């Protein structure tokens, strides 16, 4: 028995020594993770104190911010990017819902997924996409031990977008609505639901920092908004905190203590609860 122990012990030591060289992937850190989560909480629980005295000004600020966010095309760019990510995750049978927990005792994936998408450009290219002309967006999402991190982030580099898209047919004949946009900057995308398979399923929060060029006018921009399907919400400072504005036929402005519905043109507001 002593002989046997003498033989097996070195073998065990060798096996354990081999184990010391284990390599582990280092995932990239999501940028501004804590701040983004605070922002998500803020959208759920606005902090602004609204009353008849400040709602008018809040509505005016909301309208100004709305023009900056440009909800008619910006969310579509982000949603489109996320649907590509979803397609890729589905192809690999990878988790696409940040709320789902991985099954125990199963092999778990840890990975960084990078989606490099060449932007559609200002015209409908008949040939292969031209990144040098159209720019690109690089999206990074991470899965840590089988669980999708709700925060993804992206960098837009001279990304050319036509609004409405050149492929959308008849709408482009309406000359005033056609805009050639160039997007530069960083986006933080916080998923509020599974990565959307279609734009209609999208639920996420976006924080953008960068510049937007429309035509020959370039503006620095820093804003955030939340997409819930086809609905868009954004944040405006008001009443010692932040109010959340929902874009629709009217502007729905929600504070910590009250909600108002405001006419977008006349900026007249009514309490809605």
């Amino acid at each position, binding site marked *: 028995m002593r002989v046997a122990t003498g033989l097996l012990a070195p073998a065990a030591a060798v096996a354990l020594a081999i184990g010391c060289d284990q390599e582990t992937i280092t995932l990239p850190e999501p940028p501004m993770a804590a701040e983004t989560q605070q922002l998500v909480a803020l959208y759920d629980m606005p902090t602004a104190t609204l009353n008849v005295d400040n709602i008018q000004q809040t509505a005016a600020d909301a309208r100004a911010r709305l023009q900056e966010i440009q909800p008619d095309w910006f969310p579509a760019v982000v949603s489109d990017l996320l649907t*590509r990510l979803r397609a890729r995750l589905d192809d690999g049978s990878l988790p696409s819902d940040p709320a789902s927990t991985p099954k125990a005792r199963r092999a778990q994936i840890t990975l960084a997924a990078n989606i490099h998408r060449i932007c559609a450009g200002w015209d409908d290219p008949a040939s292969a*996409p031209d990144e040098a002309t159209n720019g690109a967006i690089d999206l990074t999402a991470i899965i840590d031990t089988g669980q999708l991190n709700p925060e993804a982030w992206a960098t837009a580099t001279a990304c050319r977008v036509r609004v409405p898209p050149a492929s959308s047919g008849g709408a482009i004949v309406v000359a005033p609505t056609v805009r050639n946009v160039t997007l530069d900057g960083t986006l933080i995308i916080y998923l509020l639901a599974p990565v959307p398979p279609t734009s209609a399923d999208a639920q996420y929060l976006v924080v953008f920092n960068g510049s937007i060029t429309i035509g020959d006018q370039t503006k620095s921009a820093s804003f955030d908004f939340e997409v819930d399907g086809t609905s868009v919400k954004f944040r405006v400072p008001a009443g010692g905190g932040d109010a959340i504005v929902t874009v629709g036929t009217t502007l729905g402005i929600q504070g910590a203590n009250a909600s108002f519905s405001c006419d977008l043109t006349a900026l007249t507001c009514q309490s809605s609860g």
Partner: protein
Amino acid sequence: MSSRTVIALTVAVTVLAGPSLARAQAPAETTTTSTTTTQGGTTTTTVETTTAQALPPAPKPEEQIPRLDERTAFMVGRNTLKLGILAFDYGILRQLSIGTEPPAWAARAVVDVLVPNFHVKFQFLERDPIWLALKVSGYYARLDKNGVSGHLIDVPISLFASVKAHSRFYLHGEATYIFARVQGTGDLTQVQFNGGAPIRAGQLGLMLQYRLTRIFSLTATGRYQVYVADIPFEGSNQVDPYTTATMTGQLTPGVKHPWEVIGGVAVLWKHFHMVVGGGYGYYFLPGLSIANTSKTFVPDLSLAVVF
């Protein structure tokens, strides 16, 4: 020749050649018969010496006992062919054998991947009561599925130590290091063999064998994976003409330290070996040493004919 002369020559030959002959040959038995006759006052002594050469020595009883050669340091034997459900082996030399494992080939029926494999086993120490052997196996799998083009090479290296602690009691220890490499293009995360294929792992095994009779033994086996590394991978593919996706990551096995314990019997006739048992734990695929991801009943069955 006088009788004294004959006897002297016989003794001399025996003394001079005896020791070496005894080492080189089987022991010889010499019978000497003396006959004395008297004729006409003359006494004649006739000596007849008969030397009987015995048959080659019978092996020691210990060597006649068929030995368990699967997952032990024992060998199948020189010029011996063993056809089993777990392994085909051929002993080129007494201490060297080559073989292949049918289950890996048969895996194609389940995972649609052909796994050619080969192994060589070398017993480098045979000093009763200790035997040591090294076994190196190689498995190759071509991965062509779901846009993936690549291959897997799996090389388990096992050191076996068999120790006769008592004339009826053996300890068979095993230390195995599994090294595998996946190479190729495409999305390798789609080909995970259900997430259970370790790339680098270390496993220890121990079998206790108690020989009740010459052919019948009781066995108790344990196996434990002491180490497994995460599996790194990288893949890139085109989602559409505008979009390229790149994945860089690793696969962490769900169970890092699987184990199994098995009790059984081994029946080892000269031309037929059978090992039957059952236990509990994480089932390790024979040969490949890849463990299942859940605890379950662990069957143990090995049948082989030996030529």
